[in-house]
């Protein structure tokens, strides 16, 4: 009887697996990718992209996940998260040197610290409650103090400047959150292979945490499949962007030609590890090497000058650099615009590598090449003005980057074109911003704000309740050289228990985000079957508006002396003692009693002392008429007995000090 049952079981298994293979669309899938990109300032960008998809399931909502992390799916279900992004960032993205006008920067350049935004699929009055619960959950999952975003003075609800969402978007930032491995480990736990196999095994903690920029991001989108939104498919996108400094020995400046040669690197030299094959659970596992537009055009130029050799499709850079591994495929960006060279992607598939033959991509430069990144239309910087503990001003300065070659030309073909700029800024309540003091300087001239503002939405802060928020759309002329916005503020006082630890460092104003809704970054790749499957490339193909973040600002506020409680206690006790002492004194005595007492005493006897004193004074008067002199000498209070007592006490004290001190 045993045997048949086993057979039946096996048969069932076979059948079920066949069924699973049949409905491939509904399967959970995981894909891992890594993009490497040399940067103009001798750095290397590594961008890990992991995508896990859970299909909408049509059963009763009880999922059984094979790959998808359960904690995330439960969270999404419980709080009805439509879309959410959480990023942990350390360091600053250098928009000037690393580019500000490509998908990489506008999606992956994040402000320092923690940034969290979420769109909920719940009625408007429940959004806040969901947000609070979500922050606590995330805080638990990621070992971070995201729960501080729960307080209503820490988050805001932008309407349109950050992302189009009608009232169900919440946005919060913690600029001071320190990011470390304790945040990375739970993030890796969400991956099916963790960092044990596949591309994620490259994440050697010492090397990624000595990077110049580290941003770990988690983005999830839920796709509602039915009307109630109960059963939804979830796309979880985890990216880690690091900018690494290839540790080549610094070429001495003595060799001038050598000094501009880009450092050569390999995976093992920048990460200290190699890829030992793919994560077996991943559907695909690929490594890309991207050469951006500027670099490609420079390479082409040098080729043309050098060997007068028209590069063939793809390997046109070979003369300048050498790859240690032959790429499986070269993808050339299909450029919609005219005359600009397009970027190149070398694709490497990790599938064929294994423990015995690890994948170690290396890039060796042969000739110096200098290129620059594409810049955002305007370079934004934000800074504080003024000094002192009373007031100050926030200034946002937008300066044009000489971007007249590519995109602006296309736009400014028509006359009187306009450049729209979205500004979204959240300011904590203790920085009391006076929004009426908004001043706008365009090309160094003070202009009326109304002439350039297309739309503005201001939410003044409420003390201890909500932060101040400003969203605005500026409409600047295309040829604008610079634009500056200033806002005056007063520095508030905090209650003593509202000061954070290390209050003397100052207080942070989170980054403002500057968006350019007219400019979209997207890369077009020749559409064939395989690109559609790569989530990273399809992400690149999506058109996303150019977005950049400004610096975090540090405002020194007045801080009390935190050792003050001691002084306060001392002073208060003194005041109380004096007050109660005199009050008791007053209460204890009857009116006029003292006079009566004195009178009766005087009637009894004229004191010996006063008698003595009067005689003494009379004597003095007789001798000299100098007023001051006599006043000082004939004091009635100096009497011999008292002096004797004082002397005795002093002698005792000295003796005590001498013998026992």
């Amino acid at each position, binding site marked *: 009887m045993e045997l048949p049952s086993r057979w039946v079981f096996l048969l069932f298994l076979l059948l079920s697996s066949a069924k699973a293979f049949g409905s491939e669309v509904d399967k959970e899938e995981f894909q891992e990718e890594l993009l490497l990109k040399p940067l103009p300032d001798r750095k290397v960008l590594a961008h890990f992209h992991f995508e896990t998809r859970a299909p909408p399931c049509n059963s009763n909502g009880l999922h059984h996940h094979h790959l998808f992390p359960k904690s995330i799916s439960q969270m999404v279900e419980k709080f009805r998260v439509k879309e959410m992004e959480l990023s942990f960032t350390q360091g600053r993205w250098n928009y000037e040197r690393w580019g500000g006008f490509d998908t990489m920067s506008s999606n992956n350049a994040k402000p320092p610290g923690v940034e969290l935004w979420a769109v909920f699929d719940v009625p408007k009055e429940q959004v806040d409650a969901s947000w609070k619960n979500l922050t606590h959950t995330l805080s638990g999952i990621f070992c971070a103090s995201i729960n501080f975003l729960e307080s209503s003075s820490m988050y805001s609800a932008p309407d349109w400047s950050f992302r189009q969402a009608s009232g169900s978007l919440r946005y919060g930032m913690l600029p001071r959150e320190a990011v470390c491995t304790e945040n990375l480990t739970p993030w890796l736990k969400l991956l099916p292979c963790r960092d044990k196999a596949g591309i994620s095994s490259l994440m050697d903690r010492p090397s990624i945490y000595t990077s110049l920029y580290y941003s770990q991001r988690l983005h999830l989108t839920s796709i509602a499949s039915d009307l109630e939104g109960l059963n939804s498919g979830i796309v979880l996108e985890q990216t880690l962007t690091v900018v690494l400094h290839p540790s080549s020995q610094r070429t001495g400046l003595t060799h001038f030609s050598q000094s501009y040669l880009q450092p050569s690197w390999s995976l093992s030299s920048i990460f200290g590890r190699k890829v030992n094959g793919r994560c077996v659970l991943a559907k695909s596992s690929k490594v890309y090497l991207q050469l951006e537009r500027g670099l490609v055009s420079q390479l082409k130029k040098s080729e043309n000058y050098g060997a007068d050799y028209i590069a063939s499709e793809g390997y046109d850079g070979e003369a300048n650099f050498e790859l240690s591994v032959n790429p499986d495929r070269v993808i050339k960006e299909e450029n919609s615009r005219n005359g600009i060279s397009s970027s190149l992607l070398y694709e490497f598939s990790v599938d064929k590598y294994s423990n015995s033959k690890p994948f170690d991509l290396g890039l060796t430069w042969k000739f110096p090449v200098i290129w620059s990144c594409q810049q955002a239309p305007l370079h934004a910087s934000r800074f504080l003005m003024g000094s002192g503990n009373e007031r100050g001003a926030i200034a946002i300065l937008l300066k044009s980057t000489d971007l007249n070659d590519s995109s602006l030309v296309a736009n400014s073909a028509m006359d009187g074109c306009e450049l729209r700029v979205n500004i979204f800024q959240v300011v904590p309540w203790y920085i009391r911003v006076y929004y009426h003091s908004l001043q706008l*300087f365009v*090309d160094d001239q003070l202009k009326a704000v109304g002439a350039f503002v297309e739309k503005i939405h201001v939410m003044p802060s409420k003390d201890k309740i909500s932060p101040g928020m400003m969203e605005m759309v500026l409409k600047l002329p295309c040829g604008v050289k610079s634009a500056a916005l200033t806002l005056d503020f007063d520095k508030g006082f905090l209650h003593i228990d509202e000061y954070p630890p290390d209050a003397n460092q100052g207080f942070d104003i989170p980054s403002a985000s500057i968006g350019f809704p007219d400019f979209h970054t997207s890369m077009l790749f020749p559409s064939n079957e395989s690109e559609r499957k790569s989530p990273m490339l399809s992400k690149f193909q999506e058109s996303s508006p150019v977005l950049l973040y400004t610096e975090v600002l540090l405002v020194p506020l007045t801080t009390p002396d935190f050792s003050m409680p001691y002084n306060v206690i001392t002073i208060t006790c003194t005041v109380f003692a004096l007050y109660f002492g005199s009050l008791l004194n007053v209460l204890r005595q009857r009116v006029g009693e003292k006079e009566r007492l004195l009178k009766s005493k005087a009637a009894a006897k004229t004191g010996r002392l006063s008698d003595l004193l009067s005689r003494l004074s009379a004597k003095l008067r007789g001798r000299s008429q100098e007023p001051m002199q006599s006043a000082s000498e004939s004091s009635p209070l100096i009497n011999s007995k008292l002096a004797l007592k004082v002397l005795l006490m002093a002698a005792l004290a000295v003796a005590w000090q001498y013998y026992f001190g």
Partner: protein
Amino acid sequence: MPKTETETPKMKPRPIVRLAIFLISHSLLVCVVCCTAGVLALLLLPLLAKNTYISENALMPGSASSMISNRDISEANRLASDLSGLNFEPQDAAALESRGILTKYMSDLGAEVSYHKFHHKPNQFHPLHFFSSPDSTSSVDNFSCSAQGVNTVGIIRAPRGDGKEAIVLVTPYKFGKSGTAETLSLSIAYTVFSLLSRVTWLAKDIIWLVADSQYGEYAPVEAWLRDYHTPVFTGLGALNADTCIKIDDLYALEQKPIAQTKISDGFRRAGTMAAALIFKVADRNELLEDTLNIYAEASNGQMPNLDLINIVNYLAVHRQGLRVKVEKVLSLLDSRWLEILGEIFEVLGKVARSLNPGWKFGISAADYVEGSATLASSLYNQALGIPTGPHGAFRDFQVDAITLEISPKVSSHNKARHNEFLLRGGRLVEGVVRSINNLLEKFHQSFFLYMLTSPSKFVSVGVYMIAFALLVAPLPLVAASLYADANQLDLGVKNTKSTTTAPDELDITFRSWKWLYAAKEVFLVHVWGAAVSLLPYFICQIPNCSPTSSSVIWVSLSMLGLLILYLIAGSPSTHVSISQHEEKGEWAILKSVTISAVFIGLLLMSVVNFATAEIGALLLVPMCLMAQPLKLDMKAGKFRSLFRVICNMVLGFVAFPPAAYFVAKTLFEGSDSINMGDFWNWMESLWAWNSATYIYIGMVHLPCWALCLHILLHSC
């Protein structure tokens, strides 16, 4: 004042009131005791100085080993040799070229380099701009190309830092006409900068400001700070598009050699400044060893946090073996009386120690003299209210900053010696930067109000306040006692019952309001003082006026003002007193009101600038207390009154501000080259630097001196 004892008992007032009455009635004794004690306490300060200690734990100076290598030094040497090869004519071209070289070196290190143009304008006297925050409104008026300077600013962004805070390094440098010392300071800065560009521990951005010091060291730093904190958005275009071609040339030139990084013409910023270090190499050479001079006094006697001085001192002494010095009044070092005083204190200290080994307040006489010379210099510099270096500009923006001046041992043009000097200087700066970099909060732990008696000893506010408090304490007492005397008030001790012929009501009311006349007089003299202190504004409008003639004009105008005041207000002393027997009362009440005014003025000044108040109290308090009409004393003709006359004359002379200035100058610098113009120059520097001391002299000191003189010459 006759006093009578009475038979009838009276109600005893409260003890505190009795104490006050007691003190008032013995005001002479209290005066003498307090003033002596005040002066004594001031002299005791070097004894009471404590050793400095590093209060903020996070600083951890010297806990990391230095990382400066020989490669940094050799690169700095290459920069220095490149730069020194450029001292040719014309200077403009040389300056341009050397700036280009410096920029190239900086940007090769991966720093963001930018230029900051500023227009030097000489300080102007703005009578209403005292205490106002540094403003930018006046910076965009007319300027000329000739007075334009260019600062070079390099910024290293801290890898993985959040860019909220920055540390500023400043080296003054004269492009095109630099001396060896300036080049040396630039090489030290470059050594540190090149190290900092590749270290991984940096948490704060580093700004290196090479200040164009052709208009002095303060002006470029101040201009840069002003543009950093209060930029002007309007009119920048005009500034850039003006006809100063040489600057436009500069940018054209820059594009050539550096293809990798562009030099941006925009103003670059890097967060809130945590601290600033200004360092330069002195031209003079030391005989014994490398020395480090620390300058810390900023405007109006503000000091940087003591921790900053502490870490510099600690690292210089214990790590780099430099000799650290702070400024001293040199002439005090070999003054005999100070030495004698020091010996007395030494003996006293020894006696005390023999009584109880736990009492350790004795210091050696040499230490005492050294300490008091340093203290005097510290007190004087703080009182003057003029910053002793470019660090003063930072303090105006609440940034702690000090100037380090390193003077090398006699240079033998020895290469190894030169490199060792670079290494020492570089390591010192590196250590300080690293300490500040460790700091999580801004400097707040240690003292801000202190005076140095040596680089490693300080007197904190709690101690040095005692001297001042003792000096001013008798003032209200004497004022009260004079008032009481003049009004023949009953103060409890004396009794009016004996003078049974009670004055009629009218008399009492008149008498009790009499002080109003005196107050009016005092007020008028103070108004005169304010007018006198505004006079230089008009005098300096006169073209081609030498300092001597200016001061003569000033003094004569002031005298004229006083004369006119007398004529208009009538001689204030001619207010006929109602009773004939009150000759004494009138001047006494005037003195009492004067003393109250002095008291209030000194107290207010002690809040603004303590050192000024302290020195002012030393001069004013004895004069105010002593003042008594000369006529009275002459009439008395006794020895005591003669002595008082002499004292009054001397004090009255010394307290006159110009006289005090010249007396101090002769005492400390020798009697040669005394010039009337010097005083004008000194006062001019005071108002040019917006020193509160100027206000003090004009509105407190001078009127009080005039009033005291008036009392001395009172015709009673």
